[in-house]
């Protein structure tokens, strides 16, 4: 019983982390229609920003505050340089270009930061642990990360549902020509959405860095699981991404303990089951 409760906690916490990483992907995929394979690289960018900025400022939250604008600007630049040429092209060309970006980013990472694994310090005021059982403790920082993920999820839903820019994003998603006819510059709008997606992925990388450790190729794992989240939750749905990510987190935590032989396929089996019953995802529009 104790093990079950601990696994629920583990699953929710892991799920919230994947949600943060995947939310940017579902925005970009759902609204811009871009299959962005380099999404994991932006997560990696966040992790390495966390490493450098935390060593400069001495605190992970200052690194988060400084890292998000940097990642946003970086995302806007990448959109202007590459992504905007892809909106009217087919998926194959999008996949080729964004895959090329992965190779470039990996090489840049190697040149700038080297190949040794690093770790990012947890701030002293969050470094305590909570005693869960007589042998196991739970780090407070993991709970803090969960809280940050929930806050960001609420903020995103608020922006998209309640603000003017959110209204424009939703309109741009459903009918691009109509929005343009109404005098809204979709080029700027799309650049904003892409940059926001990059900033979200980087934010996930920044807060996860102290528990993940920072090493080359850290983004590739995140990329695959993010696509699974988007497929389960429904393309473009933030709410779907949240539910999908939590389901995956729980499936992964329980799969590893109760079905160890199938641990690596549990998540994909879940995805297959969702695809069979609800092809558009849990919250997607068919």
């Amino acid at each position: 019983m104790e093990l079950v409760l601990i696994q629920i906690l583990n699953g929710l916490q892991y799920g919230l982390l994947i949600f943060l990483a995947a939310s940017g992907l579902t925005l970009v995929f759902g609204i811009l229609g871009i299959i962005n394979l380099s999404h994991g690289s932006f997560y990696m960018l966040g992790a390495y920003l966390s490493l450098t900025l935390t060593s400069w400022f001495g605190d992970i939250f200052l690194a988060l505050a400084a890292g998000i604008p940097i990642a946003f600007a970086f995302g806007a630049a990448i959109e202007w340089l590459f992504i905007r040429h892809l909106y009217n092209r087919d998926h194959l060309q999008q996949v080729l270009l964004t895959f090329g970006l992965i190779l470039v980013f990996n090489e840049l990472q190697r040149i700038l930061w080297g190949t040794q694994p690093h770790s990012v310090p947890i701030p002293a005021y969050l470094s305590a642990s909570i005693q869960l059982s007589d042998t196991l403790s739970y780090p407070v920082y993991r709970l803090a990360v969960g809280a940050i993920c929930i806050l960001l999820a609420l903020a995103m839903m608020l922006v998209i549902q309640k603000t003017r820019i959110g209204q424009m994003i939703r309109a741009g998603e459903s009918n691009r020509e109509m929005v343009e006819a109404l005098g809204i510059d979709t080029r700027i709008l799309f650049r904003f959405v892409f940059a926001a997606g990059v900033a979200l992925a980087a934010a996930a990388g920044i807060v996860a860095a102290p528990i993940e450790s920072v090493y080359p190729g850290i983004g590739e794992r995140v990329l695959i699981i993010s696509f699974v989240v988007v497929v389960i939750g429904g393309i473009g749905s933030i709410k779907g991404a949240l539910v999908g990510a939590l389901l995956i987190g729980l499936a992964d935590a329980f799969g590893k303990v109760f079905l160890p032989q199938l641990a690596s396929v549990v998540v994909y089996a879940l995805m297959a089951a969702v695809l069979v019953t609800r092809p558009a995802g849990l919250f997607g529009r068919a």
Partner: protein
Amino acid sequence: MTVTSRGVSRRRLLQLAGAGAAVSALPLARPAIAQAKPVKVGVLLPYTGTYAPLGEAITRAMELYVKQKGGSLAGRQITFVKLDDESAPPKGPELTTKLVQGEKVDILTGTVHSGVALAMSKIAREEGIPTIIPNAGANDLTRTLCARNIFRTSFANGQVGLATGTAMAEAGIKRVVTCTWKYAAGVEFVEGFADNFKKAGGQVLKNIEVPFPNVEFQSALAEIASIKPDAVYAFYAGGGAVKFVKDYAAARLGASIPLWGPGFLTDGIESAVGKEGDGVKTVLHYADDVDNAENKAFRKAFQDAYKAAPDVYAVQGWDAMQLLEIGLTAAGGDAAKRDALNAAMSKASFNSPRGPFRLSAANNPVQNFYLRELKDGKNQLIRTTATAFSDPGTGCKLSA
């Protein structure tokens, strides 16, 4: 068509060609001038990707050894032909062929990744080219796939596991949970460990396998906490090792359930885990503070040359060149005398920075193993747990 234009049958032509090849292969037929040509050493190592630091350490040590000997071994100048294998097994055959047939190297060395090394050794067996493996630990390389011309200066995964199993049993540990990635090397490290640990009366309560390269370990830690073993034996490497050691410390498990593993759990990540790695015990065929003259000289030379401390991978590269020097000397500096070269290398015995080094009948190192404890960012030597410890070489048909 069975007859050529000059009326020589195809069979006759083949016989002539065969005779010609046989004559040219005779050492006596070689002109003396060939002796002056440098010996070409093909180096297949990862210079990009996760294993790049390992490839670099091995290369540096090999080059340093040859440089210390004035650029030549056994009176023959040595030239290195280096290729990056990217630790990508599909590239193994192509790159090996490029070295052997394109570059016509005399000696082959490499590599780090076992998958690439298996592909490489297949070609090396077919070509009969003397080959030295300075890292890859796949058991089969010196078990079922062993060969007269294939040598290893590192370890077999199972060998490290066996040595760790004995050391843990000797430390009075009875009940253990093992924990690894579910892939070839992880399985071999755990199997070797379990063999010797059970023989010594120990009990493996559970083997937790995490899909490779998944690094979400909270579920595994919760399970360990509920089973409450005497100790945990874990194998991870690189970024995964950093995360496992740190998560283990953050869960405060270390106080009641000590963490053990093969040396690769902590090698190269000492600074990344910092204080959280304190107390992790590992067993390996090398420790920085092994007390012998060779190790002191080696560490000083490496530090002076590269302004960086050498690691176990550098030691393996260094010994690859020690081994080659012995082989070349026995062959009178002629790398074409493969039988003499192979025979001398398989019988080689020398002092390595890791302690006395010789090869088993399967050409895998017979070497000491050391218990180390991670403390203040250093793997500190506690004691020698085994001397002249050999891998069983199960399935190898070579005899000494």
